[in-house]
């Protein structure tokens, strides 16, 4: 993926398929620490622990007949390449939360891209789902 906005568009496919009614995309920028955190939070079907353990593998997909699932593994790779971190927490029946932390000044940090275009495309293609976007930029 060229930029983070495309990763978001890609990743959000998962909570859409998991039957979410609300998906939150939150960008938290901590300028003084050169950190950018991306949260993707949904109220979809969630995952059990066994699935959660393997979901970051590129050789896992929940879709029938598919042997690969690159979305989560590519986002994780993008975060880790900046010496950041990647966490995914989920509870069956409750929802899933992804937290990808990027070191924003790292040479391998990808550009943000057109986040608003991503959100607009998501809203237009899935009007039945509420997409919430928040940019928590601050100078701390």
């Amino acid at each position: 993926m060229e930029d983070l906005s495309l990763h978001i568009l890609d990743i959000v496919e998962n909570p859409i398929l998991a039957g979410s009614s609300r998906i939150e995309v939150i960008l938290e920028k901590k300028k003084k620490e050169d950190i950018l955190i991306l949260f993707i939070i949904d109220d979809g079907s969630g995952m059990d622990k066994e699935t959660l353990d393997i979901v970051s593998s590129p050789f896992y997909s929940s879709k029938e007949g598919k042997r690969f699932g690159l979305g989560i593994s590519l986002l994780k790779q993008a975060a880790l390449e900046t010496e950041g971190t990647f966490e995914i927490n989920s509870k069956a029946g409750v929802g899933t939360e992804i937290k990808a932390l990027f070191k924003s000044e790292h040479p391998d940090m990808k550009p943000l891209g057109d986040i608003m275009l991503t959100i607009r495309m998501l809203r237009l293609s899935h009007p039945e789902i509420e997409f919430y976007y928040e940019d928590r930029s601050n100078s701390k």
Partner: protein
Amino acid sequence: MKLKPEDLKKISEKMEASTNLRSGAGRAKITVHMGTCGIATGARDIMKAFLDELEASGKKDIIFTTTGCAGLCSHEPMATIEIQGESPVKYVHLTKEKVKIIFEEHVLNGNIVKGSALGRGSERVG
């Protein structure tokens, strides 16, 4: 915030337009493939190009939707056009310019754009 009657009218019109994108009895259906492979090769711009054409046309009988990977990753970005009563046609290696031609020729006039089409049919049965 208090809503005024004209605000409600605007919301109603907006909802009607957005609902039209996903459901209803459409004469034609546009499906853009938005799997990881599609997005990595520019599917978002293709989606925007189709939506721009759709908006400019003012047509209300065209359904727009998205789907995932069709298993033909090397042919992305891709879209499937389906005219009611006809087999779906897959278009591959799309560009904004091709989208414009496909929209005008196939979606609006029903003529398959052979140079950009991979073939007829769906990637899944059932």
